């Protein structure tokens, strides 16, 4: 197992190096002149361009710039924003907890509803119940996050006033940001402020969790039906075990495997989905930061964030693969 993990980690190195070359060239080869011109946009004067090119090292040969870039990355220096001058790492640490919270909320929604729905459909295949579950999952994969988000915001915020649709916390509560996890900060602040934090999480979590919900429902259904037709399940029933025991001991134990893999893979995809969800709900996370950085031509931030997203994505995928080996003793990675 250790050898497998080490091999996977080593395998990630060329991928990240390749991506670093592409992202390095992304900034250097921006259309419309050099990187300094692109960053400055309409404010580009020859003096400013020369100044930025010099301070950022854009006037050096490309290979010198690349090694300099890699050297700084290895020291944890992802550059600074051209807009507010803050280091990307500092801003990332403030915004990442928001994205993590949203991802956890979406996963709880998708897993908590998807697995029971999938099991329900599998118990009565080709029934009207199965039909309804199929239609729900079809909608889940066909509805864009922003359409679902706005529709829910209209119904539950604008019309019914049940849930908030903007931000992570009510600004009037003035909750101090200690951990930047809004739920944790709200708990620390006491006074049941956590209810406010959780109510802000509901709509964005559902919007972000809609695609994983659909995928998890489908895979649970298919997996449970598959396992239910196995000989050992028939044997278990034949020897008179209760339905409940067959379900928990024989079916679900084996049906979990593909379901957990899909949950893991969907977790990685949620990062990309957060870009749209955070924009819809003005959520202060990494996803909405990507969008504002692109709009502000803050290319250093865009470049660094794509790399950070890739590192997180590869890490999540590795954890999924390792977790799969733990769960399934039949698989041994060599």
């Amino acid at each position: 197992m250790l050898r497998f993990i080490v091999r996977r980690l080593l395998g990630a190195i060329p991928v990240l190096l390749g991506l670093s070359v592409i992202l390095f060239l992304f900034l250097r080869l921006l259309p419309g002149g050099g990187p300094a011109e692109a960053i400055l946009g309409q404010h580009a004067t020859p003096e400013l361009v020369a100044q930025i090119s010099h301070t950022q090292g854009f006037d050096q040969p490309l290979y010198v710039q690349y090694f300099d870039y890699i050297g700084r990355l290895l020291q944890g220096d992802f550059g600074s924003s051209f807009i507010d001058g803050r280091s990307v790492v500092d801003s990332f640490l403030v915004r990442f907890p928001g994205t993590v919270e949203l991802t956890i909320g979406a996963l709880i929604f998708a897993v908590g509803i998807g697995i029971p729905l999938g099991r329900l459909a599998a118990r009565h295949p080709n029934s009207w119940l199965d039909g309804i579950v199929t239609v729900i999952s079809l909608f889940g994969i066909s509805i864009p996050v922003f359409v679902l988000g706005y529709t829910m915001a209209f119904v539950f915020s604008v019309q019914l006033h049940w849930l908030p649709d903007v931000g992570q916390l009510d600004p009037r509560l003035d909750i101090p940001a200690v951990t930047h996890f809004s739920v944790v900060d709200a708990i620390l602040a006491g006074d049941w402020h956590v209810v406010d934090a959780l109510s802000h999480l509901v709509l964005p979590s559902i919007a972000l969790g809609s695609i994983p919900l659909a995928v998890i429902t489908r895979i649970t259904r298919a997996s449970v039906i598959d396992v239910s037709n196995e000989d050992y399940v028939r044997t278990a029933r034949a020897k008179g075990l209760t339905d409940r025991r067959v379900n928990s001991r024989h079916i679900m134990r084996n049906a979990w495997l593909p379901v957990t893999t899909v949950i893991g893979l969907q977790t990685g995809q949620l990062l990309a989905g957060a870009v749209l969800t955070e924009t819809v709900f003005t959520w202060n996370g990494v996803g909405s930061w990507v969008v504002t950085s692109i709009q502000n031509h803050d290319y250093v931030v865009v470049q660094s964030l794509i790399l950070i997203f890739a590192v997180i994505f590869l890490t999540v995928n590795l954890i999924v693969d390792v977790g799969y080996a733990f769960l399934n003793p039949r698989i041994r990675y060599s």
Partner: protein
Amino acid sequence: MTASPVAVQAGATERASRGLWGDAFRRLMRNGPALVGLGLIVFFVSCAILAPVIAPYGPNTGSLSNFLQGPSPSHIMGTDKQGLDEFSRVLYGAQISLTVGVVAVLFGLIGGTIVGAIAGGAGGLLDSVLMRITDVLLAVPGILLAIGIVAWLGHGEIQIMLAVGISYSPIFARLLRGSLLALRESDYVIAARSMGASPRRILIRHMLPNALTPLIVQATLAAATAIIDVAGLGFLGLGPGDPRVAEWGEMLTDSRGFLQNAPWLIFFPGLAIVVSAIGFNLLGDGLREALDPRLKR
């Protein structure tokens, strides 16, 4: 004693072979959900083609004095903040959103097929290098790669097609390479090789046609996500960039501020995206079942 030909005919009538595609087509035509999907796609394509005939107004004809009017007989889907007819813009939007989504998938399919065929056909070092490149592209999750490429290429329909196409191509490349590797040792490929067929001929005449079915299914399903992704780019302000161009995603961006007064601005373009994506998803699932009858939903 041998059975007379007449007796055999009475027991089982022999039908002419219809081939893989003929059988698949018959199965598809008996698949209700897939037909619904096909119907939805035909409906939206007709809307796109007939937009100039059906639409009561041009995509950019309207007057500011009509802004944010609710659905009424003269504007069945209401008007937007510039007084433009929402129904007409949804119809014209079908032209952009469907074309950009489908062409993006075609770009991805062509790129992925070339890379996958070279990698799966050639093997060796070239295969390793090409697969590492696809690994790099696959390391950036989902729509983020397309966002990065559009940020780099700039606004425009071609740029969006390229961005979404590039972000899909590694998926197609890996799929095709996997199928080709599985086919390499199949009997008919070995037979062709032993008869002296060139590697190129084996790849193009024997292996590719047999490896295409999963690609076709994947491409149909990808069309659904491409329509959603293209709308997502438009929604994020990375769409065609020309406010005169009606694009479903961009139409939604503007609606945020009018959630309270004009919810129809979200509802109708949103519905168009959802229903067209459902169409491609249903057809894709149906094609999968038709082309591989062992599979059930």
